[in-house]
Every structure is written in C-alpha cells, then in structure tokens.
C-alpha cells in the first residue's frame, strides 16, 4: 500500500517537488556560507550545487537535460522551473529597479562591447580549432561560433552543413563558456571592476551567454543582474547574424 502510494506520488511531474528541492539547496548553501563567514558566496554555492546535480543527472540517465532527465524532476519539474520561460520572466522583472540615467550613460559602450564580445569569442574559438588541427573552413567557423554561445554554434553549423559531431563540439564549447562564467565571475569580479551598472552592461555584452551572465552576476552582485542581462540578450542574435556570414567568409579566405 505504502509503495503503491509512493510510486503514484513520484510518477507525477511535480513542480512542487522541484520547488522544494531548490528551496532546500538555497537553505543549505545559505547556512554553509554563513558558517564560512562569507554570506555573499551563497548564490555561487547554490549554482555550483545545481551544476553538480546536473552532472549526476546526466551521468545517471545519459540524457542532455541534467537533473530534468530524472523522471520526478522532468517535464513540469526542474524542466519548467529552470526553463527559459520563467528565466526570462524573472529577469525582466529585475528591470523594475533600473534607473534610466544609468542606461543612458552605458548605452553606447554597451553596443561596442557587444560587437567586440562576439568578434573576440569567435576569433578565439576559431584560433583554438585551427591550433588543434581543424582545417575545414566550415568546421573551424562552427567551433568558433560555439565559443560565441551554444546557440550560435548549431545555427552556424547547420547553415554551413557540417557533421553532427562538429555541432556537438560547438555546443560543448558554448556550455563550457556558460558554466565557467557562472563559476568564475564571483571570484574575478573585484579584479575586473565589476561593481557598477556600466561595467555590468559591458560584461553582459562581452560574455553574452544569457544563462552564464545571469548566473554569474546573481552570485556576485544581484543588483547588477538587469544591466548585464539587458546587453547579453542581444549577443546571441548578433552572433547568429554575423558569424555564419561575415565570419565564415573571413575564415574561408584565411584557410584557402
């Protein structure tokens, strides 16, 4: 009777189980950070815990959605709670505290940082691909596109008709970027002066992965999240626009 009750309970896609799990993670990481005397690392610890659970989920199920592939968290569980819909909804709500004068001040440099960010990441990614022995222009461009974001990679790869293995590498490069951004940002923030709205907008424009920027800033200085997110949201669009076109032409002229 008890097992039957438990099975039918665990078989449902419970958003509530996932909310309870996330609340538990937040609670425990908060306690740990207070014990360590570093309360501001609580969010970073919580995000790292999430990544570790995603790793475990991926290992256990062999799927590509981390913990969301485990049945009690799938569908309307972690899949919904951590999906792009609620992420975007809550990010947009943070714009409520934004001051117009800060935006005006950082607007032009934000646009410049977007262009520099996409071009820089593409050059680095392509250079790494070439250094490690890739010579086909379409493949090099796709891996370079992956270093822009994990969306620009597959979009470029599909447009240029490369193999799915190269597309998988480009997605992985983008994921490495997103995860590293979340983990490293809190530790590097002081060093790069990430403490005001202008530098947050520049940071969002340079790094560009919305999840990475959002997670990194949330763990560093939550009041800067809206500024970073606002520029980052244009990054992938700009990347999908210039990388498969101008980027490919440049790489092809270098390699041929």
């Amino acid at each position, binding site marked *: 009777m008890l097992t039957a009750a438990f099975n039918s309970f665990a078989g449902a896609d419970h958003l509530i189980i996932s909310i309870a799990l996330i609340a538990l993670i937040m609670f425990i990481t908060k306690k740990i950070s207070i014990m360590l005397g570093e309360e501001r690392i609580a969010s970073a610890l919580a995000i790292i815990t999430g990544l570790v659970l995603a790793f475990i989920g991926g290992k256990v199920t062999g799927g590509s959605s981390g913990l969301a592939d485990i049945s009690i968290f799938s569908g309307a569980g972690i899949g919904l709670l951590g999906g792009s819909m609620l992420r975007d909804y*809550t990010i*947009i709500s943070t714009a409520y505290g934004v001051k117009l004068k800060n935006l005006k001040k950082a607007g032009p*440099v934000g646009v410049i940082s977007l262009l520099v960010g996409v071009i820089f990441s593409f050059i680095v990614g392509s250079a790494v691909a070439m250094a490690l022995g890739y010579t086909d222009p379409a493949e090099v461009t796709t891996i370079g596109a992956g*270093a822009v974001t994990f969306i620009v990679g597959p979009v470029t790869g599909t447009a240029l008709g490369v193999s799915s293995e190269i597309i998988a*590498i480009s997605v*992985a490069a983008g994921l490495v970027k997103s995860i590293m951004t979340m983990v490293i940002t809190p530790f590097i923030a002081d060093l790069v002066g990430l403490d005001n709205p202008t530098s947050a907008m520049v940071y969002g424009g340079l790094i560009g992965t919305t*999840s990475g920027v959002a*997670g990194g800033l949330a763990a560093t200085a939550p009041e800067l999240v809206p500024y970073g997110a606002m520029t980052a949201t244009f990054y992938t669009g700009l990347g999908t*626009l210039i990388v498969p076109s101008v980027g490919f032409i440049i790489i092809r002229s270098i390699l041929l």
Partner: protein
Amino acid sequence: MEIIGMGFVAFFMLLGSFLGRILGQFLGTGGDVGGVGLAMLFMVLTVNYLENRGRMFKPRTENGIKFLSALYIPIIVAMAARLNVVGAINGGLVAILAGGIATIGAMFLVPLLSKLKK
C-alpha cells in the same frame, strides 16, 4: 493586487518577445532576437515615465514585481541543474579550450571597455 504586478511584467515580456520575433524575421535569423532586452528597456522607460509624473505603483502591485525578482536566483539554480554538464565535459579539449579561453579573455576586456564610457 499582486497579480497586477505580475501581469505588468508579463505584458512587457510578451511585447518584447513579439518585437524580438519581428526583428528576427527582419534580420533573416528567425527566432527571438533581443526580446528580453527590449522588454526590459520598455519596462524601464514606462516605470520611469510614470514615476516622473508622480504615479507610483501601489505597494501590493509592487510586491508582485518584487516577488518575481526574488525568485530570480532560485530559478537560475534550477536552470543550472538542467544544463548538459556531462556534454560540456565530453566535448573534449577543443571545446574546453575554445569556450574557456573565450570566457576568461572576455572577462579581462571588461575593465578596458568600461573605461571607454565617455
């Protein structure tokens, strides 16, 4: 009422998403280009406009918006928990170097560009 605050944010999200999709079609990339940024921009403009005219939100309406902002970090934690971390590690050296160097390099460009602000 709190739901009015939540609806206020929802309205701007839908507006931004729609404009982002128009932009995506216009640029030929498809999808939603910058919808979140556009939504935030219009929301900032609207809130600042209303406040300049002395029209503040009622505290309960404001609570609805603040509730969403407060959920932001837990949602990022949930998002982290559904990333393909195994895939990123399995991507091999080229993926780790391409993604890693691009990230660290871009971070050190932050102070350089921040100085440009004038």
